């Protein structure tokens, strides 16, 4: 998942990110006082506001992005002040009309305004109880804030991520976990993806985007490559171990109840699932490998297990 600040050339940038391999695009609606953001995104917000990116303009930007990336989930990320001013319900409904798949409000923790459907965040400081609440209220997946801090690239992936993933698996009721904050390099991407189900890259993507769509496409492709290579490697080792193969699938089926607006590729290296939908359509992401023959190249997976009603599907082939 790639974060971009809303702006005049954001639709083309988002398209480039998708071409580079991004599965979801997060679209920042700038706020004058972004408490959760470090210097890079804060400055990007200042520039966007100076360029006139107010709520209406951001919604237009969202609609244009939707037109250029018709299949990609788009998630506006903003702060409560914008919703308060625009009207909570009106914001949610206008954003949906403009093509938003869901919403993230950085300063609206789980438990507050529960009627506003949105992706919830959990952090290393979250108690088990709050993780449970966030998972229950979230719209499709949980955003794991990997570190105690604001957005911004760091040298290493936070050591707190492993523990947070472990607790979120235990208390999150099978909701997919996407890790963000501090992730910027292919190595980070690989390390974080070994723990979580997906990764979010913000500050570095915003910086690279300043160099235009080509630079962004290449950058996202480098992350994509690292992720896919590590998944293939995982699979090889599993084949070599003669353990049951748990390859990576693309699930193109939409989940029915909660989070129904999302239909994205979900990696399937996860186990803890409940219930199952047999015969969902899957196709392997990585093909040329020694054990690829054991996976149907396209078509039906033997089983696709699904979590508690409403969360996104987790495929197992």
């Amino acid at each position: 998942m790639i974060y971009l600040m809303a702006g005049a050339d954001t639709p083309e940038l988002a398209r480039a990110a998708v071409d580079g391999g991004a599965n979801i695009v997060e679209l920042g609606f700038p706020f004058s006082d972004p408490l959760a953001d470090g210097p890079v995104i804060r400055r990007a917000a200042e520039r966007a506001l100076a360029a006139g990116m107010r709520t209406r303009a951001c919604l237009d930007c969202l609609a244009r992005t939707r037109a250029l990336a018709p299949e990609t989930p788009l998630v506006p990320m903003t702060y409560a002040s914008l919703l308060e001013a625009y009207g909570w319900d009106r914001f949610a409904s206008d954003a949906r009309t403009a093509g938003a798949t869901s919403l993230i409000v950085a300063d609206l923790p789980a438990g507050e305004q529960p009627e506003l459907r949105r992706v919830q965040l959990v952090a290393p400081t979250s108690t088990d109880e709050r993780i449970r609440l966030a998972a229950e209220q979230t719209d499709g997946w949980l955003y794991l804030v990997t570190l105690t801090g604001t957005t911004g690239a760091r040298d290493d992936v936070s050591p707190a991520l492993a523990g947070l993933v472990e607790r979120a698996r235990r208390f999150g009721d099978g909701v997919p976990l996407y890790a963000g904050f501090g992730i910027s390099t292919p190595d980070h991407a690989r390390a974080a993806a070994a723990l979580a189900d997906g990764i979010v890259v913000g500050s570095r993507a915003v910086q690279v985007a300043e160099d235009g769509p080509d630079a962004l496409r290449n950058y996202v492709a480098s992350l994509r490559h690292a992720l896919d290579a590590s998944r293939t490697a995982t699979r090889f080792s599993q084949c070599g171990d003669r353990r049951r193969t748990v390859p990576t699938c693309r699930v193109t089926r939409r989940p029915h109840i909660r989070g129904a607006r999302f239909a994205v590729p979900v990696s399937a290296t996860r186990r803890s699932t409940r219930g199952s939908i047999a015969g969902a359509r899957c196709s392997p992401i990585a093909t040329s490998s020694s054990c690829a023959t054991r996976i149907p190249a396209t078509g039906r997976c033997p089983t696709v297990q699904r979590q508690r009603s409403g969360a996104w599907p987790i495929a197992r082939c």
Partner: protein
Amino acid sequence: MTTGLYGTYGGRYVPETLVPALDELEAGWREARADPDFRSELDELGRTFAGRPTPLTRADRFAPGRRLYLKREDLLHTGAHKLNNALGQAVLARRLGKRRIVAETGAGQHGVAAATVCARFGYECVVYMGEEDMRRQRPNVERMELLGAEVRPVEFGTRTLKEATSEAIRDWITNVETTHYLIGSCVGPAPYPEIVRELQSVIGSEARSQFLDAEGRLPGVVVACVGGGSNAIGMFAGFVDDTDVRLVGVEAAGAASLGTGHAGVLHGARSSVLADDDGQIVDAHSISAGLDYPGVGPEHAFLRDTGRAEYVRATDGEALAAFRDLTRCEGIIPALEPAHALARARDLEEELVLVCLSGRGDKDLEEVLAHRAG
């Protein structure tokens, strides 16, 4: 929102990372309030360290023909009411096991109060201050540094209290496990507005009994300046149940979050803020760094809406005139913040007036002299 509400104001609009810390703070605060040792430790510190009770002074020459009294928080140790709050939160931080303090400051009075309690309690202290405020409140920067605090300049945005507060909160998000955020006014996410109000309510309860001693009856009107609103809410707390007593808050004309603002979300709470139609916070402007803030405590927004308190404005020029007059007529140099309250207090019609003189003006001399020259 479910926690810390004043009508529809207040609440907790913060990143998830802080929620557990706010829960912990709330629990620690409830425990402390129920503990007689907490109360007696604070009373003792107030008496032997801070200089409580502060006196009530009649100001005859400043307001001829009226009976106007000043509650002398300018005589409190460190020179402003801010110490009441800082001492209370320092004791609270010790109970929570936090030994690093972050704070924001505008006028520098809260920063000095925070640095002072950190020196006394042996805590590490980091104070965020806008570059513009560091320039106009230089003496307080030097005091903080002498007291052992690290003053971190905030060099972006408005370069004033709003940005300093955002940076202090970001520091807290980053270091939340070891750090207590010593907020300087009755703003921020729940339970801060309540904590700060309770810790400042000593102003109002002392002033009420002192006024009764002096006049045998209650004032007709109580006046205080409003930046974030802590000296005002502390003063009002003593009189809010006396429904005959008028409560008047005075904002800076260029930073009238209550007078010209509307509902919005800033620094963790829903309150009345200076924001445009899109919810973007707009710059405030005041000669007084302590009032130069586009937000205000949620309880004030509630008191305004219910009509229990009124909020009026004073301009930079009116504050400067009141500053000069109090200095010349009474031999008291006020801070520019309470000079706003003094400016409006003189034209109220009540005979019996109580004004919160929230701080002394040493920090403002350079600014005032520059204006006199210019």
